[in-house]
């Protein structure tokens, strides 16, 4: 995946993700790994995501638009999502994620 800088407006592309894992950290890791895969093979610039968490399952809806060199700037390449330093905490109704990407 390459970090891409584009519009924050919801784009016309929609993709659904569903992942299963035993714990919250693993669900986040699996979800982000899937985002990375989709953005690379479909050349999708993701501008939004809605996430629903269930016991051992995460469902996500991505929105975005196709990458276009004329409209988007490309940045560093993300190679993978690291478990090292991955932390998920909850503050009232907000989840706070600390994620380190291998770039």
């Amino acid at each position, binding site marked *: 995946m390459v970090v891409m800088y584009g519009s924050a407006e919801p784009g016309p592309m929609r993709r659904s993700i569903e992942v299963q894992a035993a714990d919250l950290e693993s669900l986040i890791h699996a979800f982000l790994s899937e985002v990375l895969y989709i953005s690379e093979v479909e050349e999708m610039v993701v501008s939004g995501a809605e996430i629903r968490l269930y016991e051992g399952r995460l469902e996500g809806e991505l929105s975005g638009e196709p990458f276009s060199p004329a409209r988007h700037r490309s940045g*560093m390449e993300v190679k993978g999502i690291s478990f090292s330093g991955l932390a998920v905490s909850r503050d009232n109704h907000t989840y706070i994620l600390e994620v380190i990407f291998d770039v």
Partner: protein
Amino acid sequence: MLQGVKRIGPYEWEVPIGFVPDMRVPGRFFLSDRLAETLEPGAVQQLANVATMPGILKNSLAMPDIHWGYGFPIGGVAAFGMEEGVISPGGVGFDINCGVRILTTPLTAADLVRKRELIEALFSAVPTGVGAKSTLRLDQKELLGMLKGGSKWAVEHGFGIEEDFLHCEEQGSMKGADPEAVSQKARQRGMPQSGTLGAGNHFLEVQVVQEVYDPEAARAYGISEGQICVMIHCGSRGLGHQVCTDHLRILEGATRKYGISLPDRQLACAPITSPEGTAYFGAMASSANYAWANRQVIMHMTREVFARMYSIAYEDMHLVYDVAHNVAKFEEHTVDGRRMRVCIHRKGATRAFGPGSPDLPQAYRTAGQPVIIPGSMGTPSYLLHGTAVAMERTFGSTCHGAGRVMSRTKAKKQLSGHEVKEALGKEGILVRAHHNGAIADEAPEVYKPSEEVVRVVHEAGISRLVARFAPLGVIKG
């Protein structure tokens, strides 16, 4: 230096058992006082974490380019016994067989006219950056051939000459590759990216041999002062990244299944001969072969550009050697006086086999294995040779590069790509990238000084200097 870490030599430090709980062996790393100023405590902790893994032999090691990684530190080396030991994607990294090769030309600096045109021609010939498409048009069958055959596959498909793959670590084709263990997702990512340079710290650089330190070894490697060479640094692209991600998940389950206790989930591992360990090795070896084929194809494109622009023969440009920086392999080493087969992990470290090694091409057996250490953009790169000391002390391993001192995000905030490009231009170094941000990401200030890193491995004797290369022009993704 960190509390609890002991100096045991001018350039060698020990992390004793007990630095973190459950260490099985001590940690050892190589560092000068100057490099110690930027040593991250987290990297030493990671070195100690590796020492807790089952079956680790002698020491958890790190080279002087040690810095904070994921699971293993970057610069980390660890060998595991075949029966009681484990294999871990955390000891290889996401970019499997990220590596570097150096190609000689018959040109000298004086012959290198039209340098800007050359850099533009290389930038056009080698697909770089986001959305750049492979010119190979591989189908599934051909991809399988690439995953099995590596550099050899590329040469057989017209992307080089026979001596090329003979001048690669593992002859550019790792045995035990099992493409069946490479997921469809990984293949899907790998197919359109074969023969592309990628982004991040990957580059193709035109260099001149600035100084020869060891004339005998340089002669054996075909290197002479003033000669124009090309260095190519890239890896297994999205295919390797996906293999790491896929198998990390599988090995997380295996870690629990085999009752292995670890201080960091990124160190997820399985016994070497277990089904999970075997599958990871087969997929990782396939990715390593993909990377070797990738560098071979890029080198082919480079030769064609030079042949066309300077009317030199394709065959007069020789591959000195190709080394892997991120890989796990089975090698024979002497441990406590006993010759044994081990599973060695090198993550941001280079194999540095000494003179006489049967794994080396005949022409290099007296000098030892060529070790290629790329500098950061704008700083010198080095050619060294492997030593008997490395065979005794570091399982035949040495450093891999300069090592980061500043994160890429911080680099962007502090350094403008345009300024970096201008400054390098004033030194006569041309930089070509799709956008200036990629240049700021890799500015020389982001890295430890390469000359100090190689000085440490030279002084410690784990590899010895042969020649220094100055950059003339570079293309980046």
